[in-house]
């Protein structure tokens, strides 16, 4: 059709446009905007309004133009008519040809199906034939392949068997018995079945070789020079060769049992062992110490056990028994050992050895629960040791005390304490606590419990004030130094978090509380003693009928002596409070002013009490108290010499005041108190750092006495001074003769 349209180009083009416009959907939808924009005179637009166009045309144009337009339009209409006709024709033409094509196709397709079926059938028959060929050949092929493999294998076996005697000989030469046995056991089944055939010679040669091997192995097994491991290997090989080993096993285990004796720690030699153990830890060169030997022996033993366990799985029970027996004898010997007096270091040395032994064995026989067994045993032993140490400590102390009683005059009380402090476990328990072997971690709590209990039992049996102080200090040492150290070591060695058993904070708290309690106890015991002196002093005389004071009463000496004792004990055991001391020397000036102030206050009070207006006096005392800085009498005790002495003195002066308040005095009674207190002032201030508090408390005693006095007339200062000087002179003289006479206590 395109060729037909070529000469009439214009027309064909138009035709195609029209056709395409006919087949495309409504152009008003496809191009709506363009049609709207066109004006009224676009006759092809969809919004063309014929009437409007007419109106416009008639109004705008004259007749000529209209006529012209008419002619033009008539031509256009005619043109359009022809176009329409053409279109209809073309359409019809195409339809006809399409119908023809479809008719032709229909006739061609008919008959093709039959051919296709034929083809499929043929292909199927080809495939089934090929399968048949395959299956019929498969069996034979498989068989051929199998035969081929067998042949190869047989060739190898033949080679192996023929080579066996030579190979075995080679192994014997190089002592590679393991390989030999492996080869022989491998060849064994073949030799058994085909031994009578062509392999006869081979078999005989191999058997001969194996005989030699067995002989060699047996000698190896029983020779002591061989390592246990080597012997164990030999045993394994023998077993593989079906040589009966049960008798061998019994023999070997017996031997192992015998070797136990050598492993025991002889109680008599234990200390040597321990010493060497300690020293060999210090100096690594010292390798040949008995401890090392022991360790090697035990290592050998455990290796043997490991080997036997592998060889004779059925012997486990017996091995367990052996290991347990060794552990038990270890602890039994330990108990024997500590029956004698043993230092903590030695004890720990042995303990460490045993523990190492146990660890070694435990590695081999974890099921034997050796660590549990030994933990139990160790607990018992340790408990005994702690108990023994305490009894020894007690013995020491009573020994020294006994000595002290005999040489009472020469030995200063404090020296005993020093001895005690050194001997008293300070070192020992610290070492015990220092120990960080696994077992101790487990038992630390228990241990501390025992030690505490020990201390408590100790208390109830022997009361010695100084000792209490030592214990107090010991607790502080434990709290401040020992526990952090243990904690450090534990965290260092068990970073994994195994340290729940050991809670340093809690233990510190326990020891802290214990130390405070002990210190308090010391002060209590001391003040109680002084209270007894004071009570006797105040209960004995009839204060209402007291005679004029002639001298300072001798209870003052006893009081000062007691305080001196406290001072001595404290100085040797407790540290100095450096800070306070320093401050004191610094502020010397201000101190004297405070003390002078309080003395003036005191004399004021005296003047007032002279006036005998008791009612107003009470009021004034209260007023004075209000204005005077409230002196802290009962401050917390610290672990320093000064603090303990100060506290003791304060408590004693308070007791003095309380005793005074319970009495009623006549004039002379009051004067006696006044004199005694005046005398005490100087020496007390010397011993105590808190002078203001001492002044205050001494004043309080005087005030209390004046309140309880029926007729308050203080001694005149000159008389007071004279009596004090007399006393001082007397005590000086007394001190000069001190070597012979001591104040009776």
């Amino acid at each position, binding site marked *: 059709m395109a060729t037909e349209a070529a000469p009439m180009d214009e027309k064909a083009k138009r035709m195609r446009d029209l056709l395409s416009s006919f087949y495309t959907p409504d152009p008003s939808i496809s191009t709506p905007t363009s049609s709207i924009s066109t004006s009224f005179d676009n006759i092809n637009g969809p919004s063309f309004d014929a009437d409007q166009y007419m109106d416009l045309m008639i109004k705008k144009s004259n007749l000529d133009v209209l006529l012209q337009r008419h002619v033009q339009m008539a031509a256009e209409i005619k043109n359009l008519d022809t176009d329409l006709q053409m279109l209809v024709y073309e359409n019809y033409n195409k339809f006809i040809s399409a119908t023809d094509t479809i008719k032709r196709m229909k006739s061609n397709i008919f008959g093709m199906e039959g051919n296709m079926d034929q083809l499929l059938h043929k292909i199927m028959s080809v495939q089934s034939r090929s399968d048949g060929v395959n299956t019929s050949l498969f069996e034979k092929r498989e068989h051929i392949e199998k035969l081929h493999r067998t042949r190869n294998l047989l060739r190898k076996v033949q080679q192996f068997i023929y080579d066996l005697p030579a190979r075995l000989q080679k192994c014997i030469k190089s002592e590679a018995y393991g390989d030999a046995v492996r080869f022989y056991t491998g060849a064994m089944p073949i030799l058994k079945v085909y031994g009578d055939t062509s392999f006869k010679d081979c078999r005989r040669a191999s058997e001969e070789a194996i005989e030699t091997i067995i002989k060699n192995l047996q000698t190896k097994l029983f020779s002591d020079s061989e390592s246990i491991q080597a012997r164990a290997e030999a045993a394994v090989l023998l077993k593989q060769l079906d040589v009966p080993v049960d008798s061998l096993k019994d023999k070997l285990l017996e031997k192992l049992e015998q070797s136990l004796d050598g492993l025991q720690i002889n109680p008599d030699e234990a200390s040597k062992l321990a010493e060497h153990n300690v020293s060999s830890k210090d100096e690594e060169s010292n390798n040949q110490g008995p401890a090392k030997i022991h360790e090697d022996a035990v290592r050998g033993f455990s290796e043997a056990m490991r080997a036997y366990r592998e060889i004779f799985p059925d012997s486990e029970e017996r091995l367990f028994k052996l290991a347990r027996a060794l552990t038990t004898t270890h602890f039994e010997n330990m108990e024997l050992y500590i029956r004698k007096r043993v230092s903590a270091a030695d004890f720990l040395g042995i303990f460490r050895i045993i523990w190492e032994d146990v660890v070694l064995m435990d590695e081999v026989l974890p099921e034997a629960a050796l660590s549990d067994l030994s933990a139990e045993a160790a607990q018992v032993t340790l408990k005994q040791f702690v108990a023994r140490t305490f009894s020894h400590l007690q013995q020491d102390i009573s020994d020294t005390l006994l000595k002290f009683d005999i040489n009472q005059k020469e030995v200063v009380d404090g020296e005993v304490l020093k001895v005690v402090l050194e001997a008293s476990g300070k070192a020992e328990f610290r070492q015990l606590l220092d120990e960080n072997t696994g077992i101790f971690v487990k038992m630390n709590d228990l241990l501390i419990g025992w030690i505490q209990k020990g201390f408590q039992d100790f208390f109830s*049996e022997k*009361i010695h004030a100084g000792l209490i102080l030592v214990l107090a200090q010991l607790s502080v040492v434990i709290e401040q130094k020992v526990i952090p150290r243990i904690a450090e070591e534990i965290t260092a060695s068990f970073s994994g978090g195994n340290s729940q058993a050991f809670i340093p904070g809690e233990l510190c708290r*326990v020891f802290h*509380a*214990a130390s405070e309690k002990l210190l308090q106890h010391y002060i209590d015991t001391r003040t109680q003693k002084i*209270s007894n002196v004071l009570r006797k002093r105040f*209960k004995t005389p009839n204060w209402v009928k007291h005679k004029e004071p002639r001298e300072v009463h001798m209870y003052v000496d006893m009081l000062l002596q007691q305080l001196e004792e406290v001072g001595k004990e404290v100085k040797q055991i407790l540290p100095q409070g450096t800070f306070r001391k320093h401050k004191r020397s610094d502020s010397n000036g201000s101190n004297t002013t405070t003390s002078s102030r309080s003395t003036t206050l005191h004399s004021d009070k005296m003047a007032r009490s002279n006036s005998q207006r008791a009612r107003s006096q009470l009021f004034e005392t209260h007023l004075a108290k209000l204005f005077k800085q409230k002196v802290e009498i*009962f401050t917390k005790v610290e672990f320093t010499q000064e603090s303990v002495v100060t506290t003791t003195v304060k*408590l004693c002066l308070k007791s003095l005041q309380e005793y005074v308040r319970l009495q009623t005095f006549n004039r002379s009674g009051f004067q006696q108190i006044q004199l005694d207190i005046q005398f005490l002032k100087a020496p007390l201030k010397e011993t105590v750092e808190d002078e203001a508090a001492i002044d205050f408390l001494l004043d309080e005693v005087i005030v209390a006495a004046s309140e*309880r006095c029926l007729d308050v007339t203080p001694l005149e200062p000159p008389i007071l001074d004279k009596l004090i000087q007399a006393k001082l002179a007397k005590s000086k003289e007394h001190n000069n003769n001190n070597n012979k006479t001591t104040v009776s206590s």
Partner: protein
Amino acid sequence: AQARMQGGSSGIGYGLKYQARCISDVKADTDYTSFLAGTLSLKEENEVHLLRLSSGGSELICEGLFSHPNEIWDLASCPFDQRIFSTVFSTGESFGAAIWQIPELYGQLNSPQLERVASLDAHVGKINCVLWWPSGRCDKLISMDEQNIFLWSLDCSNKSAEVLSKDSAGMLHSLSGGAWDPHDVNAVAATGESSVQFWDLRTMKYGISVDLLCSQKVNSIERAHVRGVDYNPKREHILITAEDESGIHVWDLRKAKAPVQELPGHTHWTWAVKCNPEYDGLILSAGTDSAVNLWYASASSTNNKAPESPVESTRERVNLLLNSYTDYEDSVYGLAWSSREPWVFASLSYDGRVVIESVKPFLPRL
């Protein structure tokens, strides 16, 4: 009325004119919470103050002020008649004890005089205390001096007192005070220097003498001095003692070898201890360290075994002290629970200040 509120502290204070040691709960007064306090002045005219806690509990009102011939060393209100009380007094040289009655018309008189019901004048030495049986009406009285113990029969209507029996504690013992068992009208505990003796009033012999302190200390020199003793009104056989240096001990008299419990007591001497009349285990102690301590010695821990671990026991100990009242200027000698409002107590320090406190805020959840 001279009541005043204390700034800062919860207590209600009241000032006596002079120094004082004794305060007693007026148990027979069921309408009001009231206390009797007596002064201790050697030279001035001493007084007995009848104090009443206002119904709101915010004020302490002086209901009566009576002059008393001598300084008062001991004062105890009669448990069944609120107008009767006993005192032990001293002139400085001699001691005396008497039963007094508050005059009926005291409200109208300017300076009412106490009526002396009876004088307990059989004593020679220093009298320590007069005891009333705490649990009810009983016409008997006990008085103690340092050597002797007297049992009196009191007849208030005839204003007379007769000695029923008397015995001596022996020269070696110096009695210092005592307590009458509220569970047994025939049992009296008397404190010596370092022991407590138990007397049977029927035979007037002391059967058991428990050497309390010797049993715990070996060394006989270092004995503490027993200052106060009190029976537990809620549980039979339980006794508490206050000792100079060694604090407070709780004893079970059936097994008196060792105390069942120890409380640390005070920084200086523990002077007085009182069991609460209603709440078992609540103990009050007064000390010369100018403090009153409130303790809780629970029944479970009184029955206690040895503390299981040292850690536990310290923790327990800390909890025992419920509160320490420290707002005092001087040693506290006088201490009394109110039996009408058992959570209230009165304390009296040497400077004559009465302080009433409530323990309610410190009580553990029982």
